[in-house]
């Protein structure tokens, strides 16, 4: 077995890197697609420096065939559809907070049944496209927490759809309350740092692993900072014959507390410090998608954000060490699962 050791010496693992990467769309091609269809347009009211539209545009411009978007309640839904305007130029369905995956199940099955019955344009009043992809966007609130049951059900039933979670690690739409995705010790408005508390006292849920446990064809973790990797993963997810799930780290300048111009940099740091490893699980087989040559300590990432400011005080040094230990432990676990399989774009 070829795995790297925890201090980041990657020699043995890099030896097995597979470079047989399918060609991914170039930025030019993505831009041309955007120009052609304008599936998601500007003028919405997401915050300056928000990572969510970066992710949405990468996803929608990767897809060439017709797409139906199902959107759980959250920042993306609220800020892109302020009446009388909308940023969406695709069929778009907003449901309640907890049921995006269930609604997507309905869309997918209905389309499949209409197709099977061979309904004509005359019967339907419109021409049924040859292929449609159902894509769900949900935040960590709508995915890790309240929507988890609907997601689990849809993954288990095997609908052909792609669920994309934009994980900004708290309920940002309602003002930064903690979620199942909030990292330990982060300050949020419901885990306030003060005399009685050091922030969130619990672990974060490993949602990507929960999705893997459903034995679906494709699951991946991605980051807006690595757009080629993200685009490749969207393509792989859409090709999968069954449910696919992407968990995309989506930094939030308001909730995390940093300058809006640093969004991409902070997303990249999360990968380079191995807090947010990029990997994919194809038919149950793990592959690492970013092997930081010189991994940075997690404190490099934490210190960019106000929500972790208290961890940088000398008296909290032990907490920082504990977090680093956790990151190392998770990383080693992931390396063992990857068994030396590395695929970088």
């Amino acid at each position, binding site marked *: 077995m070829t795995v790297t050791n925890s201090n980041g010496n990657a020699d043995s693992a890099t030896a097995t890197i597979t470079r047989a990467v399918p060609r991914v769309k170039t930025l030019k091609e993505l831009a041309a697609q955007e120009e052609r269809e304008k599936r998601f347009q500007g003028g919405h009211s997401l915050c300056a420096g928000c990572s969510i539209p970066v992710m949405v545009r990468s996803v929608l411009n990767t897809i060439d065939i017709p797409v139906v978007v199902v959107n759980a309640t959250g920042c993306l839904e609220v800020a892109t559809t302020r009446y009388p305007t909308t940023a969406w130029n695709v069929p778009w369905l907003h449901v*309640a*907070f907890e049921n995006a995956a269930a609604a997507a199940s309905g869309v997918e099955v209905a389309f499949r049944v209409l197709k099977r019955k061979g309904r004509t344009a005359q019967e339907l009043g419109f021409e049924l496209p040859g292929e449609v992809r159902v894509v769900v966007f949900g935040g960590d609130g709508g995915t890790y927490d*309240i929507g988890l049951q609907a997601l689990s059900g849809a993954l288990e039933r095997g609908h052909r759809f792609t669920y994309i979670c934009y994980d900004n690690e708290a309920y940002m739409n309602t*003002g930064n309350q903690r979620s199942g995705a909030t990292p330990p010790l982060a300050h949020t408005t*419901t885990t*306030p740092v003060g005399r009685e508390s050091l922030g969130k006292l619990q672990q974060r849920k490993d949602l990507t692993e929960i999705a893997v446990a459903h034995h679906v064809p494709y699951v991946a973790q991605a980051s807006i900072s690595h757009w080629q990797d993200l685009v490749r993963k969207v393509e792989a997810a859409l090709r999968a014959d069954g449910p696919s799930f992407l968990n995309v780290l989506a930094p939030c300048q308001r909730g995390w507390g940093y300058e809006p111009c640093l969004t991409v940099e902070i997303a990249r740091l999360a990968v380079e410090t191995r807090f947010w490893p990029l990997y994919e699980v194809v038919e149950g087989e793990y592959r690492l998608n970013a092997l930081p040559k010189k991994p940075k300590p997690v404190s490099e990432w934490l210190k960019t954000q106000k929500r972790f400011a208290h961890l940088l005080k000398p008296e909290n040094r032990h907490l920082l060490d504990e977090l680093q230990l956790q990151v190392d432990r998770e990383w080693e676990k992931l390396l063992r699962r990857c068994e030396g399989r590395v695929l970088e774009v």
Partner: protein
Amino acid sequence: MRKLLAPEGVDREAVLAGEHFMTGDDACAEGAIAAGCRFYAGYPITPSSEIAERMAKRLPQVGGVYIQMEDELASMAAIIGASCAGAKAMTATSGPGFSLMQENIGLAFMMEAPCVVVDVQRGGPSTGLPTLLGQSDMMQARFGSHGDYAVIAYAPASPQEMFDLTVKAFNMAERFRTPVLVMADELVGHMSERVVIDPDKIEIERRPRPEAKPAEGARILPFGANGRGENGVPPMPLAGEGYRVHFTGLTHDERGYPQIDPETQERMIRRKIRKIWDHRDEIVEYEEVELDDAPIVLVAYGSTARAALRALRLARERGLRVGMLRLITAWPFPGRKVEELKDRELIVPEVNAGQMAREVERWARKPVHRVNRLGGAPIAPEEILQKIEEVA
């Protein structure tokens, strides 16, 4: 260390005594703490999130526990659990979350588990108007869960009442062993006003407790009226205290054991309803404003009552004799009072399509005049005044 179990009386160290300028949501959280609430389980939702945020900050300071749950189903279930363990427990939400809580609100009624649910109403249905005013959950408050049941529901009209009525909600919940609702609205939740908190004026009630000690063989009937008549409130043993207890959502007998037959259903559900309905004179509250000489009466509640009061003053200035009946409890509904007013012209302004107006009509046995808005903005006093002038 203060116990998670509700303090016996007023915990003076915990009460934020003094005069404050605070929002209704903050006042609600302070009211809960003053009433002895030491357990909050919730899920953030606009416009109630500030209650959760304040409880997250305040509860650890007074020895309590804040838990953020994964959704509103879990929030409601968690406060029932905490209540069965002896804590005074609360959750707060808004429309969509209130819908998700309904099954468990019925469970709390069935288990006779005292707890408080705050609904800071926004415009609905569904996601509706997350940040804007609504009063359209008033009938859901009464009938939202399946099956036959009774509820106590308050309708605060100011931050001061958010405090006072939250305290009262806990007292009623404890006294009658039942879930109590605080049906606030976005305007009352988000407005800032003077709130006076005086620990000397706070009264604390505790749930009835079994007399027999939890010794071997102690026979208690946690769901029996225990000689208090057909509308009695049974004593409540606590989980882990030593009694053998059985709490279930199935129809159960006086011991708490499932008994699936029409006789038990008739006997047990009737008692649970009657323990509230038969005591309605002690529960029902309303405010009368210049009713005596008024041929026209406004029936209003919550933030809309503030606009109605202004309309009343404007009308009086113009020589129109108008009075107001302000509902403080929406449920049980002050039906007898409305019955007394059946010969007056009744106007019911509310931020929904006409929900409480139906209940007013039911008791007045005649159609009433409505002023409605479906949410998003308060009804202006001028709109109510216009209706008064039409009716006069």
